[in-house]
């Protein structure tokens, strides 16, 4: 047996989750599920970076509150974001009085942090762990692309970075959806050089993790109520369906992509949403709600991340992708 899939014996619970999004995202398809919609992108701060940091702080506090815990009950924080040196998470962690573990999986950070946190909780070392991740359209644009006011056109394959933060509390005790399995992904690179086509760069990573997960757990796509990728977007999710079909596995109607679903058609986001915040906010609002209602019994959540940097891309490197998968099941008494 290969060991990239972990089956959790104690099945850590997600006892609280919180999502916060920007105004544009607040008009998207999931608007009634979010906990808080900001009135503008600055969130009362002077710079967008500070706004992103404040979003993380708000999300962490919100998740702890919704879990009906006190800040002193939290043992450790696992967080990450898109900015260089993951400053938003690290600087936000200054505000809290618990240890901090920074993770970077680009847009896959939510699943990575939940997988790491669940492993730590399941091992019995910690009781309550907060996971958090965020992205901000304006900070990501200025780091990866062009200034906001530059009058250029976006290529048709590009995606829109979601302004949003999602956070959840993983705990040994309490009631909530259970994290039952996690598959840690390999870095996969199939040689896509176009940095505007992240969906195509990340789809092979999703395929790799998905295949490993099905093989290790002896499950098929029909065993899940929902198989959801993070931000492959419209193009990337079509590619993933094609790639899986080549391998003889058919992804049916229960497959979906957060980025593709996130925005409405008239919001001009081309291939859909992207960024850490995209799958983090959908997971911590919509998917959590449906799991708590019992509408979904078993969800396979596998966000993908493009591990690129502008320096590496300018040196002609292709875009590597990574994908971590977690299985979350509805709580049963």
């Amino acid at each position, binding site marked *: 047996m290969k060991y990239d899939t972990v089956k959790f014996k104690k099945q850590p619970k997600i006892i609280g989750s919180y999502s916060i999004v920007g105004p544009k995202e607040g008009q998207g398809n999931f608007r009634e599920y979010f906990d808080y919609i900001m009135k503008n992108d600055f969130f009362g701060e002077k710079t967008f970076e500070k706004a992103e940091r404040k979003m993380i702080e708000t999300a962490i506090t919100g998740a702890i509150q919704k879990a009906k815990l006190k800040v002193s009950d939290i043992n450790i924080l696992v967080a990450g974001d898109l900015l260089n040196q993951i400053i938003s998470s690290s600087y936000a962690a200054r505000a809290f009085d618990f240890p901090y573990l920074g993770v970077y999986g680009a847009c896959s950070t939510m699943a990575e942090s939940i997988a790491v946190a669940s492993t730590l909780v399941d091992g019995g070392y910690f009781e309550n762990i907060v996971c958090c991740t965020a992205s901000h359209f304006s900070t990501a644009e200025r780091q990866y692309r062009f200034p906001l006011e530059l009058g250029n056109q976006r290529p048709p394959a590009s995606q829109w970075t979601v302004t949003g933060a999602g956070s959840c509390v993983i705990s040994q005790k309490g009631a909530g959806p259970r994290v039952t399995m996690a598959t840690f992904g390999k870095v996969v690179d199939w040689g896509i050089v176009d940095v505007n086509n992240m969906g195509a760069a990340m789809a092979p990573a999703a395929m790799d993790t998905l295949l490993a997960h099905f093989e290790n757990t002896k499950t098929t796509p029909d065993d899940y109520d929902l198989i959801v990728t993070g931000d492959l977007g419209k193009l990337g999710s079509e590619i993933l369906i094609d790639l899986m079909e080549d391998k003889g596995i058919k992804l049916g109607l229960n497959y979906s992509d957060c980025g593709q679903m996130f925005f409405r058609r008239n919001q001009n986001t081309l291939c859909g949403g992207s960024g850490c915040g995209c799958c983090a906010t959908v997971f911590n609002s919509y998917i959590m709600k449906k799991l708590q209602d019992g509408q979904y019994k078993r969800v396979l959540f596998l966000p993908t991340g493009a591990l690129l940097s502008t320096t590496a891309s300018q040196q002609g490197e*292709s875009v590597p992708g990574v994908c971590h998968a977690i299985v979350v099941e509805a709580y049963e008494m």
Partner: protein
Amino acid sequence: MKKNEERIKAYNKYVSAKVPKTKPWPTLFNSFWVGGVICLIGQGINDLILFLVPNISEQSAWAYTLIALIFIAAFLTGIGVYDKIGKFAGGGSIVPITGFSNSITSPSIEFKSEGIIYGICVKMFTIAGPVIVFGVISSALVGLIYYIIYLFI
């Protein structure tokens, strides 16, 4: 390793067939008419200057026209309108001098938060820098060619 390269080739071929393409005709139409309108505005300003100030030389009227266009574009960038024009028109609003103005103003606004020296002054030319470099080099080259031709006439 060879198998890997083949896979990369095959996958890239598959993706480039799958990727959505820009529709050329509507895009070209929009960029040409917006670009034309910008030029028309420029000509209008030029004619107005010549009409209002009859003694002005044509050369300096041109200079004032350019200054006016640069100011208008910078102003529109500042109030957040120029990027919307650019999104609609593409090359139509990048190629005229207004696009150049926008490419300097927009990083200046963006990096204001890093301070005047390290933010605005350093980042101001991140987009326009190559244009300036190639502008200077090509004008020097053209000047040289002009000089050599002039020697023989």
